[in-house]
């Protein structure tokens, strides 16, 4: 028997993800993780938005840093970036928002999702240090594939941060095996090809893919890209995902209520509640 890659040997970072997955396992639930852009539409509202997501029952947070050229994002998240950039939001402002969230919610896992040039511009080490100080648990760089990831993974570890890797539906065995070796925190399982957006729904992850993820012992897979309804969350979890991430659908609610903050916050809370309710196994 191959015993070299056991789940427990994975780098556990702050342990917030592993604690979350243990807690959810006990109550037989999957995780629901909303994504929003930090600083969208401006920092103060952004903080209130994140609080509303947590109050609605989010198990963890996936947070973006606005970037000028987001090649993996569809129109909804592009527009969120543009709104934040128009409000002159800089990476430093994003870390401030995260620090505030962390101060109020010491246990919730917080993941960053962003693009490589923002990390390079600050200096990779410096960037991970700032993230770690702000209370970030994991970082996913949308344009750093496994093949370019080693340098980031090593620096991440040095700052007690888990580097999140992406398992696309078209991944080769070689890729999945490497994700098995290197993943930590969770694995971002792509629900479909393409860019982010609620317009095209995620596919149910193929059983063969889920089996392979288990075989290679990757960190728990969260299904993302094209998740916008409780039914999809339910199906994702039934078919073996550890939970689901919903970005564009969440951001759409922000966009729809830009001129009415109370309505925005209560709609976000209600949305998360309905998605979370679908995580019960």
């Amino acid at each position: 028997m191959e015993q070299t890659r056991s789940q427990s040997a994975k780098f556990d970072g702050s342990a917030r993800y592993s604690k979350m997955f243990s807690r959810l396992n006990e109550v037989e639930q999957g995780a629901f993780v909303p994504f929003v852009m930090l600083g969208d539409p401006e920092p103060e509202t952004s903080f209130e938005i994140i609080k509303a997501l947590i109050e609605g029952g989010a198990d963890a947070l996936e947070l973006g840093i606005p970037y000028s050229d987001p090649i993996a994002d569809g129109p909804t998240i592009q527009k969120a970036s543009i709104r934040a950039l128009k409000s002159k939001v800089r990476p430093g402002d994003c870390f401030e928002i995260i620090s505030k969230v962390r101060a109020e919610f010491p246990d919730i896992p917080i993941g960053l999702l962003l693009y490589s040039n923002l990390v390079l511009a600050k200096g990779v080490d410096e960037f991970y240090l700032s993230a770690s100080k702000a209370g970030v648990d994991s970082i996913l760089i949308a344009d750093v594939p496994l093949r370019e990831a080693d340098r980031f993974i090593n620096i991440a570890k040095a700052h007690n941060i888990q580097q999140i890797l992406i398992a696309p539906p078209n991944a080769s065995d070689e890729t999945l095996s490497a994700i098995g070796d290197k993943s930590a925190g969770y694995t971002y399982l792509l629900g479909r090809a393409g860019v982010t957006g609620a317009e095209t729904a995620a596919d149910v992850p193929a059983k063969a893919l889920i089996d392979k993820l288990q075989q290679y012992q990757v960190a728990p897979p969260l299904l993302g890209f094209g998740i916008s309804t409780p039914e999809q969350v339910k199906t994702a979890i039934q078919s073996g995902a550890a939970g689901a991430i919903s970005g564009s659908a969440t951001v759409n609610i922000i966009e729809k209520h830009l001129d009415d903050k109370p309505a925005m916050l209560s709609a976000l809370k209600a949305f998360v509640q309905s998605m979370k309710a679908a995580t019960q196994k």
Partner: protein
Amino acid sequence: MNKLDTKFGDFGGMYVPELLIPALDQLEQAFLDAKDDPGFQEEFMSLLKDYAGRPTAMTLSRNLVSNPKVKLYLKREDLLHGGAHKTNQVLGQALLTKRMGKKEVIAETGAGQHGVATALACALLGLKARIYMGAKDVERQAPNVFRMRLMGAEVIPVDSGSGTLKDAVNEAMRDWSATYDKAHYLLGTAAGPHPFPTIVREYHRMIGEETRAQIMEKEGRLPDAVVACVGGGSNAIGMFADFIDEPDVRLIGVEPAGKGVHTKEHGATICTGTKGILHGAFTFIMQDHDGQIEESYSVSAGLDYPAVGPQHAYLHDIGRAEYFAVTDTEALNAFQLLARKEGIIPALESSHALAHALNMAEEAEEETIIVVNLSGRGDKDLAHVTKILGDKL
């Protein structure tokens, strides 16, 4: 893992979403297979010769240079079908598309020259082309939009971001990440993720190879310098490739200084030099302190790009190639001078290379042979230049 080097020193790489890695690997494999396939090479060579018009001429300028010590040659990519060097590598990648069993082609274009080359190759080879073009460029380059549509390509205006070339590349990559099974992304310059910089160089390297043969025939020796403009870097790397191992041949790249490299309005990425990642490669880019990409500017749309091919970044880094910047005004002067003195109307892009070569020619104190890559012809620029020069002509 990759079969070819993905990097040039630290530069280059494959900084793309994981989703695109299999498509890039498939492309690398197809490129390698095609290299060893005589049938592919024969078809490519025959298209270059019988359809596109290779080899292109090399012309010794008669009236342009007053310094008697200097001979200035022009490598005439402006005579190539399509009006610019772009056609070379587009034919190669279009054949690769067929080889991979794909029937659709995605491309980006700025000035429209790469779009036109893509449209013509797809018309010829029975491929379906969709071409992303910044909304601003669609307006600025209306004749090329018409050419593309005439040859059956779909032109898709891109409104996001600054509405220029970099946004067209973003959109093309977004499209590709959903359609890689049936579509090939036919990138238009020697930039982007591996294997594009290598493929584009190899499919343009005949520019330098022909130059070597032609200059040996005419002069019996290699040139002292080859000079080319650098947007993403394809015509320059095509000219340089065959001379990289000839230390006595200076390799000179000319970037757009726009309104001056000390203003914000330029596209001289290597000359102003900050490193970062854009469109899949680690290279020199234009960015602010936080790493947000800044808009570039140049009078010539084809040089208006805030990054540069990674091999140029490397050649600069190791000191093998030299890079200079030429302003809009200098380029416009060279544009008019070539028209008046030699009866050749160059592309505004190529006029940058020419302007720098003319400065070199003036300053030369020894016998000097310079070859300028005249990467394209200026027909596409006439409306724009008329607007700028107006009644000053």
